[in-house]
């Protein structure tokens, strides 16, 4: 093997090494500018509060959500309904506020709500506290607990003082945002 070949191979190897480094940096770029992407709302949810007409592209649920915005009293009709539990509740739907129509999947983990960036649902408005409230599972039932917030958490219009089970479809209000748990 001549020295020249080896030199060329060596240069090729170094080049490949750096190609790898830059491939990683290229793959990283989505992460560097990714913060904005995360804040972007899904198309349907963004469209919902702006236009009253439902965007069918989001499937049936967004249509329901937009309906709820135009008739905020409607979902509160069932305060004495069955409690939301792991069996019957699958999602949390924002019914009014900036993100009306957006949905959040309910898993088995507790869901924290507040201004702080480590919350599961981050609400940045003037009425929300850093750690405002949390949804937690208690014996398989979804409970809302107010974390001593300044402006309070409201379930069907009354302030939550102790952890309270959430009826399915009842309106929970945090700051300027309301949401409910649905099947």
């Amino acid at each position, binding site marked *: *093997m001549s020295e020249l070949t*080896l030199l060329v*191979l*060596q*240069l090729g*190897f*170094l080049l*490949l*090494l*750096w*190609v*790898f*480094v830059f*491939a*990683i*940096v290229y*793959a*990283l770029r989505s992460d560097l500018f990714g913060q904005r*992407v*995360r*804040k*972007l*709302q*899904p198309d*349907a*949810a963004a469209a919902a509060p702006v236009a009253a007409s439902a965007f069918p592209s*989001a*499937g*049936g*649920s*967004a249509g329901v959500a937009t309906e709820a915005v135009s008739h905020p009293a409607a979902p509160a009709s069932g305060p004495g309904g069955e409690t939301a539990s792991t069996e019957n509740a*699958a*999602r949390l739907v*924002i019914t009014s*506020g*900036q*993100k009306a*129509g*957006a*949905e*959040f*999947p*309910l*898993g088995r*983990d507790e869901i924290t709500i507040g201004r702080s960036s*480590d*919350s*599961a*649902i*981050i*609400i*940045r*408005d*003037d*009425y*929300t506290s850093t750690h405002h409230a949390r949804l937690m599972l208690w014996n398989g039932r979804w409970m809302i607990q107010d974390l001593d917030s300044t402006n309070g958490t409201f379930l069907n219009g009354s302030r939550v003082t102790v952890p309270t089970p959430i009826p399915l479809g009842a309106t929970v209000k945090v*700051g*300027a*945002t309301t949401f409910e748990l649905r*099947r």
Partner: protein
Amino acid sequence: MTDQRTAGGVSTGTPPGGVRRIRVPQRLRNTELWLLLLACLINVGAIVLVQLGALGRIDTQVVLLGAGLSVLVFGLHVAMRFVARDADPLLLPVATLLNGLGIAMIYRIDIADGESGWESASVRQIVWSAIAIVAAIATILALRNHRVLFRYTYLSGLVAIVLLLLPLVPGLGKAEGGAQVWIQFGNVASFQPGEIAKIALAVFFAGYLVRNRDSLSMVGRTVLGMRFPRARDLGPLLVVWALSMAVIVFQRDLGTALLYFGLFLVMLYVATSRLSWVVLGLSLFIGGAIVASQTLDYVGNRFANWLDPFNPERFDQDFGGSYQLVQGLFGLANGGLIGTGWGQGRPDITPVPQSDYIIASLGEELGLAGIFAILALYALFVARGFRIGFAGQDDFGKLLGVGLAFVIALQVFIVVGGVTRVIPLTGLTTPFLAAGGSSLVANWIIVALLLRLSDTVRNHPRLVIDG
């Protein structure tokens, strides 16, 4: 529609109960697959180039052995497709490439030393890599949620101390190169329990600090604008300090002590964001190091070699001289900008070129361009680790991620800084590169833990509402 889940964690119009079940294209895993293929290609290329440069022919047996390792790495990749779909796609390729470059270099030094077969360091390194990757697969399969570790905070603290003390047990411990940090299993293998101890320590620190951070950061008296902690909160700092000093004195291992103490300081700082802890800790360590350099021979020697390595008296000294340090520097200088080429330098002149001095060996054969690529890989790896810690939702996960990434960063700094004469030389393994089974196992477990953490971070749905 599928993209929304990966982008915002918010799904629209998903059937009830099916939220987690949707088959989204595994975009992250596919990125990982391509990068892994590239990494394995470079690894095989490195071994082939070593053979061309040093032997002048290609020995397919070793190439196949290296390729066998790639199969295991892809095994880890497939395992992640099932149990950690949203894990970070960059950690695994970087670790694979570093591991492969290390194997190629160790193999190259084996050729220079005329060693082959099961006795050679490179074959042992390949076997250890296989064990390490299997350990990583086992970790990622067994540990489905990192919060489980939080339950075992104090247990892992105890495990760390026991592991650290193991080499001091008579009959089990073995001293090598002055440091008593190994345990010996018959004649088959030796293991450095301190490597595993660093993971246990990181878990312990993270758990302990999450439990006690309020009393550590809020209470205390203010001196010169900095809040100093109460004596009772100072306890753990002093215990860890005493522990690391004991490591220096009894095991004669300066690098490991520096690593443990640095790890604790950084995690303390991240948890409490109080600069006073760092000031306090650094002054404790510097004080301890100065006392050690005055009273302990081998520590004093290290300092003298660092300050005045080119003194002929030091260079010619039989034991504890600067011969190794200077040879390493000569090697780096010989490499120049693009290196001598795989298999064409003389890295084997330096003592232990395949473990402590592997970075000098790589610097000689790959040159400044190669060394910078390697350092960039480490930087990317550590940056990913910090990023995972930063994005985490729970405090324990955040601290653990930062701690594990910092362990790698500090280890690279101590080794590369020591070899390039930025700081006094202390023996520590270069993560993933250097020959040494225990270090490989520990670092691959760190990779698995970071992957698990990153999966939890991304998997945790988030919804951001800007009012």
